[in-house]
């Protein structure tokens, strides 16, 4: 199954470069970003595309599972947001959900004392505070509040890991997009070991008379 799936069914890698990738190739490149793995499927590499699909979607979902929706658009780590957007549709959907969740969770991009910064949960937490609350009382109330509203919990280390998961998923999709680009342009990579083997065979087949490379060929 794997060997047949590896063959170029929709694309001829030996096609002249002047012809270019064609509309299917460009479509595959765009779809490779929108849906990770779909670009490979479109150019006939179904098994390879399925592996990329599962791996990248799984990695992104695992990041969300670990850190929750807050791993999207981390306020202090904008660079991860750019990489997360390379994942395509999962990030587009998650970004919309995250924007909606800001009303509930709060957003540190707003001034600290504003209602937006506190969000609904933050406002609720503040409103529930009894007058003259001691530190111990606040700690107990916080633990109970997090039990009732798990999204209110915050742990930077784990949240960072979730952001990294989603960001790496995007960077891997960029790698997959480059692979689609290489394949649709016919720039198939060659195994370096095979290249060396072929060079040795050529050197052995046509030894030069004054060849200093004779020992090399003999070897």
């Amino acid at each position, binding site marked *: 199954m794997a060997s047949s799936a590896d063959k170029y069914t929709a694309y001829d890698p030996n096609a002249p470069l002047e012809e270019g990738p064609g509309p299917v190739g460009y479509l595959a490149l765009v779809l490779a970003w929108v849906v990770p793995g779909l670009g490979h499927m479109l150019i006939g590499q179904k098994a390879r595309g399925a592996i990329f699909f599962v791996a990248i979607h799984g990695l992104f979902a695992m990041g*969300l599972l*670990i850190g929750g929706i807050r791993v999207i658009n981390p306020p202090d780590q904008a660079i991860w947001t750019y990489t997360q957007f390379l994942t395509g549709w999962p990030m587009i959907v998650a970004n919309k*959900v995250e924007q909606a969740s800001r009303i509930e969770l709060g957003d540190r991009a707003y001034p600290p004392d504003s209602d937006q910064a506190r969000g609904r949960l933050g406002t609720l937490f503040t409103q529930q505070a009894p007058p003259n609350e001691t530190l111990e009382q606040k700690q107990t109330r916080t633990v109970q509040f997090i039990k009732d509203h798990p*999204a209110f919990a915050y742990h930077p280390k784990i949240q960072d890991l979730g952001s990294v998961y989603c960001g790496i998923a995007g960077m891997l999709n960029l790698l997959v997009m480059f692979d689609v680009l290489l394949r649709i342009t016919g720039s198939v990579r060659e195994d370096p070991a095979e290249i060396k083997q072929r060079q040795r065979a050529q050197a052995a087949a046509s030894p030069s008379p004054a060849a200093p490379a004779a020992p090399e060929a003999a070897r």
Partner: protein
Amino acid sequence: MIHLCVQLPTASGLLAFTPLYDPLFALYPRMSDHWLWLALPLVLAICIVYKGTRVQTLKALPKDAAIMCAQIVLVMAFAAVALASGYWMYLKFVGPMVS
């Protein structure tokens, strides 16, 4: 110190938990003790995708990905040991001299 026991979530916690929206540490507050293990699935996914773009035939993918995964984990472990040793030596020898 890595604790191998996990605090089980309560029934009310499970009901309040929304997967992919709420953070997992809301269910497992001691998850931060195990955060290092979360690097392993990440490394595995990186190896599978990277090797998936490199191998000529997919038959070679499991072996190549496993080798690369082992290499990364070993190098990270070696780097961790080296850094921890350096830090230990700093605390043991350099720190007292500076202070």
